[in-house]
């Protein structure tokens, strides 16, 4: 406490901070009583400076930022402390005063471009009302100027369109245009690009940088991505469970983290400098003898080396466009690759690349339009119902959304037992034993059995999904964005678990992801997809160290923090 006060005084001596948050406490009134979301938070933003708040979900980073613009949700309130904007305490300012400040003194760029524009008004109208409310000229030319400055091409025509006619990246540009339209002195950017593809993310952040530098706007950037924070901000503030645990110059913080939490965060950040996780081989086999592989999972050398071969796989969807007319949309276009037993192959691509469609076809949930999928020497399209049933035992999926992949009505026991029951394996007692073993394998306490998915966190649900996938002792597991929705630390934990299971059980993974950093950590081979086509394949090292295609280079270049080289040992968990 004392230390922090002194620091603020030292900083304030030269120049007055634009935003200064002192000992801020925020609490929410919920049905379970008062909950403290933020305690003792303090940070300063000097004029023209970019400050990033980094933290996991629930760390209080967004709440702190919202307090700075007086937009706490109805059940939240500032319980203690001050929010000084240019010396004026706005934590308890009147709504009238806040309306004066918002827009032209403090602007905001929100997180999700899909939900932050009102769907019933034209983009131009939503810009115009901002200008008008802040007493600026708001003719059609002014609106077009604001939009084109945010990098929106053909702005005067675009202004007459509705949000749903815009792509995600264009909407985010429109939101940036709105946030900066009245040239505020402070811009609060709350995860401004986390909903976008990496390449778009990079373009938009670059443009935001350029604009705020030109205007001299100070930025308070909220992000969960340490690499992004360090790359974009002068100063990083790390929050953990509602408290500021560490803050300082971004590179120094990254290279020399002091607080154990920051150290953990830096270690888990899937930065490019990290290596392939070599889990159990180094950790030893403290629990390796728990489960002898069942007979049909034998990892014998007599099996064909390539467990999955994808040959000229194509999927064409018919898009209906009214009155029976339809247009063809080729989601997957002539894709061929193969997966070796006991290895991890990653399919990387941005949204719309067709990577998930490939996964659906490999799982035999979707029929290919042409081409074939050969699993263990057999074309899967030739299987009859009984053979498909047997195939399902050997190939299992893990999905992205930890909130959607478990049936909320099923207890964890029933969830993990379902595959065993469906395939009529064992009796009641042996199935219960197996469920207990599986929970051990994914490092969940056995008492979790009686719980329901809504009582578990995202990471825990994903572990349950892994246990369910393992129940039938499969050979291949298809992970469709299996860790994308998780916080960094939890993500690292689950990735380690997956690597550990692979080395112990000889599993083969097909890993679908948009996140190249994760690929580096887990994959042996990489397939890069763009708009349905396979643009590049190779071993992970090849693709990362010497990418051949421009698209691959663009993807690699777009990873936040790619240029911030860390000592390699810091990145191994």
């Amino acid at each position: 406490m004392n230390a922090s006060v002194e620091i603020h005084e030292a900083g304030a001596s030269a120049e007055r901070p634009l935003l200064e948050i002192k000992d801020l406490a925020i609490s929410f009134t919920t049905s379970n009583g008062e909950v403290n979301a933020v305690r003792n938070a303090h940070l300063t933003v000097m004029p023209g400076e970019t400050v990033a708040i980094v933290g996991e979900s629930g760390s209080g980073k967004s709440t702190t930022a919202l307090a700075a613009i007086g937009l706490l949700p109805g059940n939240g309130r500032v319980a203690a402390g001050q929010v000084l904007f240019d010396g004026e305490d706005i934590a308890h300012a009147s709504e009238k005063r806040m309306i004066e400040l918002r827009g032209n003194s403090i602007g905001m760029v929100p997180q999700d471009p899909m939900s932050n524009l009102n769907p019933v008004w034209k983009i131009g109208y939503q810009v115009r009302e901002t200008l008008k409310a802040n007493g600026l000229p708001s003719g059609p030319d002014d609106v077009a100027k604001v939009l084109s400055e945010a990098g929106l091409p053909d702005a005067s025509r675009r202004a007459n369109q509705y949000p749903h006619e815009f792509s995600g990246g264009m909407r985010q540009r429109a939101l940036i245009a709105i946030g900066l339209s009245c040239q505020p002195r402070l811009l609060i950017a709350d995860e401004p690009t986390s909903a976008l593809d990496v390449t778009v993310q990079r373009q938009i952040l670059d443009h935001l940088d350029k604009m705020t530098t030109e205007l001299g706007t100070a930025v308070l950037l909220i992000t969960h991505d340490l690499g992004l924070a360090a790359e974009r901000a002068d100063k990083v503030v790390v929050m953990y469970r509602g408290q500021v645990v560490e803050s300082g110059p971004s590179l120094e913080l990254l290279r020399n983290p002091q607080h154990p939490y920051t150290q953990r965060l830096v270690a888990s950040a899937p930065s490019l400098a990290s290596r392939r996780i070599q889990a159990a081989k180094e950790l030893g086999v403290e629990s390796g003898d728990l489960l002898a592989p069942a007979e049909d999972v034998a990892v014998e050398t007599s099996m064909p080396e390539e467990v999955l071969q994808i040959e000229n796989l194509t999927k064409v969807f018919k898009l209906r466009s009214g009155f029976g007319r339809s247009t063809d949309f080729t989601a997957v276009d002539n894709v061929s690759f193969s997966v070796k037993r006991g290895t991890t192959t990653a399919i990387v691509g941005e949204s719309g690349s067709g990577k998930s469609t490939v996964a659906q076809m490999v799982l035999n949930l979707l029929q290919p339009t042409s081409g074939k999928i050969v699993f263990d020497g057999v074309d899967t399209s030739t299987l009859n119902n009984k053979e498909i049933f047997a195939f399902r035992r050997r190939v299992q999926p893990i999905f992205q959304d930890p909130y959607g992949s478990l049936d909320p009505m099923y207890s964890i026991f029933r969830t993990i037992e379902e595959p065993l029951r469906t395939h009529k394996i064992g009796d009641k007692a042996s199935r219960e034993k197996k469920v207990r073993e599986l929970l051990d394998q994914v490092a969940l306490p056995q008492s979790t059995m009686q719980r329901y998915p809504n009582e578990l966190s995202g990471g825990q649900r994903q572990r349950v999904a892994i246990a369910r996938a393992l129940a039938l002792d499969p050979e291949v597991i298809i992970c469709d964005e299996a860790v994308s929705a998780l916080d960094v630390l939890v993500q690292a934990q689950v990735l380690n678990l997956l690597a550990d299971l692979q080395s112990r059980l000889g599993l083969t993974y097909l890993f679908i992801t948009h996140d190249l950093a994760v690929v580096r950590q887990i994959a042996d081979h990489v397939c890069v997809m763009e708009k349905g086509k396979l643009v590049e394949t190779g071993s992970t090292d090849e693709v990362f160290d010497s990418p051949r295609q421009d698209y691959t280079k663009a993807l690699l270049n777009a990873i936040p923090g790619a240029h911030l080289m860390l000592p390699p040992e810091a990145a191994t968990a």
Partner: protein
Amino acid sequence: MATYILKRFLQLIPVFLGATLLVYFLVFSLPGDPIVALFGDKPVNEAVAARLREQYHLDQPFWIQYLLYLKGIFTFDLGQDFSGRPIAAVLGEVFPVTARLAVMALIFEAVFGIIFGLIAGLRKGKFFDGTVLVASLIVIGIPIFVLGFLLQFTIGVQLGWAKPTVSSAATVQDLILPAIVLGLGSFAYVLRLTRTSVIENMNADYVRTATAKGLSRFRVVRVHILRNSLIPVITFLGADLGALMGGAIVTEGIFNVPGVGNRLYRAVTQGEGPTVVSIVTVLVLIYVVSNLLVDLLYAWLDPRIRYDA
């Protein structure tokens, strides 16, 4: 947009045909002599029966009968009721009265439902909200004929603020009390719909963004919360017009309003099958057309729909 309208229009044709076919089938094609059935408990008048048999083409196969009947609808040749008057003329007399009643009820439920719902939504969890919510439940819970008698007895008879029954001219003034009774149920529904919708929109991201832009509270409420909340409400109101006209039967009975419902009620009790079928068919037609209008209204209110077709 044109595609969307055309598509919705084409979808309504089978609905209209299906519904009229169903009604026609129910009244004229089940076992037993329909004409005898039409007389109900009264003795069969052979002359009338013969005329009716001819009028409804009962000597023809069922499909021909139905098609001829459809032709009759579109040429306003609906035949005659038992007293020998053309049904089309009877409908021309009663429909304007019911339309007036239904529109008045609609205005009542729209104005008060939206105002109360907006205030309740903006003050979610406060005293006003709680009171209005419980009151609306009670209004929904009490059947319309009970409400009708209650208001007729208290306001009409005991307090004398409004006329308990309606004159044959059925002026706007006469219809105030019946319109309130007719619209009360929907009023409660509109109120709750508006409230839910307002609460949902208040928590929407774009409303927070609008506030962050520096807009005044009034503008945020009017331009962003209310405008978006009205989409489902107006859609409901449009569809309700048809329902109000069809549902006026009880209200018209209580207040003795010379409208469609009253005429239908009389036709039912007196077993005038042809009149019943004609009135129901016109009501179905109104329902179908008002649904089409709702679709257009919806497309106009919500730009996302226009292009999704």
